[in-house]
């Protein structure tokens, strides 16, 4: 039985543009489970990024509930949470990776990671520094950790952004098209990193329209006109049986996902 960590109930998001109401999300219901790598797919303008921001509390839903099941006894509704509580949640429970990396431009890669770590009162400064060093080392950024973001490649920036997002060991990692601005090599590096994190138990929710990226997930949600219209369960990416063989080959996964997407008029 999977444990729900985030639950969207009848989530609606409406924007007003010059008096015209645009309904981007209409009554979205979804569950996010612990340990899952969930991918949200959909055509351009389907509202997938909007849903991600509503789920992560970056933006508030117009109606409905977004319940987070954290360490508290009762779930907290992100739609009614005050800004300071949301800020605390972002420090400890949610990590976020943007499509455009968004590193603070005058902080080095190491500092970008460390500053987020410093915000977490549970760790000492030396623990934070050690963990930042370790994570940056793990993602191959040891040599460039003292560089400013403008002086490293997009892939390096995005890896740094992921490290920053996980420095405080969040319950849930959100990623919005994290490979959208990257070339093929960098895309692979970033996806490998996310997969590695998920293998380590990190719950991830990622928005993408890239099938290669979507293949890394074990659960896919399809969004159309502001509604979830499809859901697909996969085995864990690269999961092996007792003999060390992949339970589901890459090709078989791809075929399964393509067939599912075709059925949804992708």
């Amino acid at each position, binding site marked *: 039985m999977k444990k729900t960590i985030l639950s969207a109930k009848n989530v609606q998001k409406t924007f007003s543009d010059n008096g015209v109401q645009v309904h981007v999300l209409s009554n979205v219901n979804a569950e996010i489970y612990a340990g899952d790598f969930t991918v949200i797919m959909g055509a351009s303008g389907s509202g997938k990024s909007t849903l991600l921001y509503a789920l992560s509390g*970056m933006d508030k839903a117009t109606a409905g509930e977004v319940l987070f099941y954290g360490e508290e006894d009762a779930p907290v509704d992100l739609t009614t949470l005050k800004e300071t509580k949301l*800020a605390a949640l972002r420090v400890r429970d949610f990590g976020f990776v943007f499509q455009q990396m968004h590193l603070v431009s005058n902080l080095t890669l190491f500092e970008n990671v460390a500053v987020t770590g*410093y915000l977490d009162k549970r760790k000492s400064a030396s623990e934070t520094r050690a963990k930042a060093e370790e994570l940056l080392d793990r993602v191959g950024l040891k040599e460039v950790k003292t560089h400013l973001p403008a002086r490293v490649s997009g892939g390096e920036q995005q890896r740094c952004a992921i490290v920053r997002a996980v420095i405080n060991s969040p319950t849930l990692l959100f990623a919005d098209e994290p490979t959208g601005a990257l070339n093929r090599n960098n895309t692979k590096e970033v996806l490998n990193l996310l997969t590695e994190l998920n293998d380590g138990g990190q719950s991830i929710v990622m928005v993408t329209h890239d099938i290669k990226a979507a293949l890394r997930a074990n659960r896919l949600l399809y969004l159309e006109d502001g509604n979830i219209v499809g859901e697909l369960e996969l085995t864990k990416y690269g999961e092996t049986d007792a003999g060390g063989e992949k339970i589901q080959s890459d090709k078989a996964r791809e075929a399964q996902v393509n067939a599912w997407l075709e059925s949804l008029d992708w």
Partner: protein
Amino acid sequence: MEIFTLVKAEIRNRKGIFFGFMLLTALIVVSTMTMLGVNKNYDDAMDRAFKVEDKGELFTYFRYGVYTNEMRARLKGSELVDKVEEYPEITGANIKCNGKSDGNGYYVLAMFDTLPVYNESADGFVNLKGNSETIEPLPQENRLKKGEIYLPYGLKSNYNAKPGDKISMEFLGETREFTIKGFVQEAFMGTNIMGYKTVFISPEEFTELREAVVGRIESDSDIWSSGEVVYVFFSDKADDSVLVTLRKLNLETKVADLAWANADRESSEHYTGMFIKIILAVVTGFGVLLFIIFLIIAGHNISTEMDIDYVNLGILKSQGFTDKMIRRMYMLEYLVSEMIGILIGMIASVPVERIMSRLFFSMTGILPMHNMMIVYGLLLCAILFFVTALYIRIFTRRIAKVTPVKAITNGKDDFYFSNRCNAPITKRGLMFSLGLRQITSAPKRYISITLVTTLLIFMVITSQLMSGFIRSKDALASMGEPFCEINFAPVGSEVDFHVKDIEDIVLKYTKIRGRMYKTHLYVSINGENTLVQIKGYPDELSSVYRGREIKYDNEIVITEQIAKLLGIDMGDTVTVARGDISAEYVVVGIYQTMNDVGKAISMSLDGFSRLRKDTTEKYTVDMLNMYGISVEDEDAGPKIKEEVKEKYGDDVAIETYKYSDIDKSDGPNGSEFYTAADGSGYLIYALTFIFALVTVIMICAKTFIQERRDIAITKAMGMKASSIRLQFALRFALIALISGLIACGIGRCLSHRLLALIFSLFGAPHIVLTYNPAAFIVPVLVFTVCYMLFGYMSARKVKRVSPRELIME
């Protein structure tokens, strides 16, 4: 048209900055226009006052019997003189009014029919309408009756007097009380800055009093009680300045040597408008400083605006906008804001000018004109516009380097520089270290605000030093105005008075630090009419700063003003004349005094004895008329006063003061001087802080635009809005602190020179500053705290930034 559309859009998007510039311009215009207006309206009013009074260029007063037929003939015979008007005079002494007394004598004259009489509210005259220069006959109800007196308006504030109050004065043994009928505008010595005054009574009463006083004159020692006031009208041949003409006339006729007192038109204009001119100089200097700050901020804004609008500039260029058009857009944006600021400033300066003129009116006694400064205003606009336009032109030169492709592909260098000098980021004091990093990673962005803040703090430090300086005992002594706790003088010439007796009483209670016993008289030095300070103990409380004090009877010390005026220096021999006696003296030192704005010389008792008719009869310390003793124990004052009163009763007037009461209204100098100085200080503080606030808001707004993305990122990382605001606040506090340190260094090097320049206007160019650490620390701390608050306040927009702004849909 397309440019106007863009300008409109720019203004709409940068409302805060637009209004900020408007406010800064308005402040500059209102301060400059007000002071120019006050000054011009004073000059015009003074000019009218002399024209209406119609008493020529020179007021001279001769004691009884000195204005002989020979003197009259010499004067009338001079080709420098057109005509003279002579009026008999009596001198009132021991003046008392509303519980206050005045040691100066007043020249009492029969009422002139050319004197403008103030109406009840003192906003006009009863016999002079509007801006007219033609005096009308005085209405019957305003004419003086026996027992009534008109005082010059300058005396109103001295005595807090109003019509109906009583004023008494002594006429050679006879004390008479008058009812104040009202106040008149008297151009020569109507200001409250000058000690001597002409007051006016009814012709009938004057004739009766004059006869009685003259009848009581028995010896030479009584001739002070009466005399002649002679007004001299210069001829067309007197084409030099009034002062030069007077010197020439004195060399030819001895008019200044023989007269007991002179007041020429030029000097009267100078003394009457002295405070206006000084404050005008200070405010104009401050206005120029504000304009420099305005330009620095404008430069900063234009360059950061170009950074922020970099892509837009490329887009505009790709659409066919030329460099010229874009530069014109920037120019229009600033000039429109400046123009509105000028308009607001000019409108606001009208009531402010009236208020300020009214404040000065109580000092000058001359009713200010209220002409609009249209020509000055237009000239000021033109200068502001021209300088700003030129400046913007220079600052927008780099628009030419922007190419559409480079801009659209964001080919511009990153906002931030290398991380070589970057401050470390630490968990402890995270917000402070992040604030510091913002500064060290882009120092160029903060150069302008640092420069502006440095200038502002420097101004406040200088103002603080000035405030401390004018209250410092040593400083007062160095300016020739030593603080004396015990001040006394004999009342009347008949008193059997011995200074030694009073000194003995003082010594019973405390030690004496120094004595300032003196008399002020007028002599001529190389023909120039000058104040002479005859000092009992010149070497005590000395204000000589070059050369040495007087030791022998043939020595004098002079002020720097006299040295410059007459082209003399130490070692030179000069001729000093009083009446028909003259003697030669050697200049042995340069000293300071604020009396007569520094136009003075000083000599010893023995030195002055050489100018007496009978040189064998020595001038002694008991013959002086101003006595001040500086003591070690200021609390001893009341006991000393009591014992002196016991011994001399009302024959000796004695006042004791505490140094701590120096700036109180009943202090030795009254409160006006300190109020004026403190007022200027507060004005500088207020304007400085308004400027600082506007500057911080504007810089913060720009920084906010530049860092909006970073703010969103840090919010997405979980940083609270209040923490980010705190980071802004700490950043600005740090800037204030750095600027403060620089300002302290500049203050230590330049404040002295700046203050010397200001005090040279008062006649004290040589000042001794005490660098009290509080004068430096307090402004720096105040600025740091204020900048922190201003930074926190103006970063309130952080609340509105949402991580959602980072979303790419």
